[in-house]
């Protein structure tokens, strides 16, 4: 589904990703873990070309998206992204947030889009907030709207960048539950997270990035119980 071949990302003179390769299969849920500043977000953002890799290639369904001839907007249509800071459109209602892109980008009819959006909002438990504005919602509710907004484009891949890091503790669970439900539908997902228990429970694989390099790429029980690298051992011991 996603094949990353030796990508490198340099900001100015600062190499943030160094020669990273990995493959993510259809339906897989991959958790990306690592210390702050290690390049997790940058890696994730390369997957939908919010950052352009300095070198290397990325294939999605066997198509090279890093080819300069590729229409980036077309690629992004099929990849949903959820941000730490939600990034909802504050001047639009919840329903407008969810319906805007399908209408504008996919040119679908309003009625169809709204029906679909209401179904999605019901699934994330926000049927009663359809006409609210983002400023009237709690953090957890905002993030659930953001997930519904991404899903409304019917993506084949979902990327999450620390979706619960900006939330008050009591709201973390409601968002994780939504992501967990989504994982069970067979969606291909890449999740940058600091929630180790969540990663253990939901992820099929854990990728540990440190200083721009993938140090571990393993099944969760293996990674958490028997990490190979010293850096990962060190990282995990500090979390406890």
């Amino acid at each position, binding site marked *: 589904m996603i094949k990353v071949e030796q990508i490198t990302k340099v900001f100015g003179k600062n190499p943030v990703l160094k020669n990273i390769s990995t493959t993510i299969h259809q339906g897989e849920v991959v958790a990306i873990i690592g210390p702050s500043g290690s390049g997790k977000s940058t890696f994730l953002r390369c997957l939908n070309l919010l950052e352009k890799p300095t070198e290397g290639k990325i294939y999605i369904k066997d198509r090279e998206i890093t080819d300069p001839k590729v229409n980036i907007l077309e690629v992004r249509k099929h990849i949903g992204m959820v941000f730490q800071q939600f990034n909802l459109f504050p001047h639009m209602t919840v329903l407008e947030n969810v319906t805007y892109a399908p209408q*504008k*980008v996919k040119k679908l009819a309003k009625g169809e889009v709204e029906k679909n959006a209401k179904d999605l909002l019901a699934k994330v438990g926000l049927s009663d907030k359809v006409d609210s504005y983002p*400023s009237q919602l709690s953090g957890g509710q905002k993030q659930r709207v953001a997930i519904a907004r*991404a899903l409304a484009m019917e993506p084949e891949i979902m990327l999450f960048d620390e979706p619960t890091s900006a939330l008050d503790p009591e709201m973390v669970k409601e968002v994780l539950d939504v992501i967990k439900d989504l994982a069970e539908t067979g969606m291909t997902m890449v999740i940058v997270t600091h929630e180790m228990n969540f990663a253990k429970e939901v992820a099929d694989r854990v990728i540990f990035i440190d200083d721009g390099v993938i140090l571990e790429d393993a099944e969760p029980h293996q990674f958490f119980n028997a990490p190979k690298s010293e850096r990962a051992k060190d990282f995990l011991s500090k979390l406890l």
Partner: protein
Amino acid sequence: MNLDFSQLGPYIPFLLQGIWITLKFVFVSILIGLILGTLLALCKITRHSILTWFANAYTSIFRGTPLILQLMIIFYAIPQLTGYDIPTFLAAILAFGLNSAAYVSEIIRAGIMAVDKGQVEAAEALGIPYRPMMLNIILPQAVKNILPALMNEFITLTKESAVVSTIGYLDLMRRAQIIGAQLYRNFEPLLVAGLIYWVMVVILTKLGSILERRLRASD
């Protein structure tokens, strides 16, 4: 000190007509400044480096030199160069419009830049093309930053408009000076003109704060 406003009586209509003359040219200048300023702001945020360079150079020149000098150049230098005897109204709106455009473009650019960059990322991640992103997502949010600052720019322009009296345009200020010369009394007409400017500015300020409150209510 003895003030005598009674002699001013016959001149009052002449003075009051100046309000309309001033407003007319201020309004046209604002319109020019707004249109040209918006275009310049768009030049500043595109990725076309030539357009950006031009807009930045324009802004630097018009903000970096005195307005009165720009007015003089347009009014005196154009006839010298082209032989075209430029009317005072045209010279006035050109100088003020072109000058205001520089400030307006900065206000709009700053207002757009102040929109959280997460908004652009969210739009990009959804595959939304540049134009609808600007029109439907970024600009509606930028307007809240832009409008209050624009209102200030209009207020400044209204006050500074008195500078056109130097090229003989018969605005409020010029009329006050003419009356002063006729009466050999300057204080009274200037005081009345000052009062009128102040009232205009107060009204504009009031409009501005109503607008601002409206914007905040829609948050």
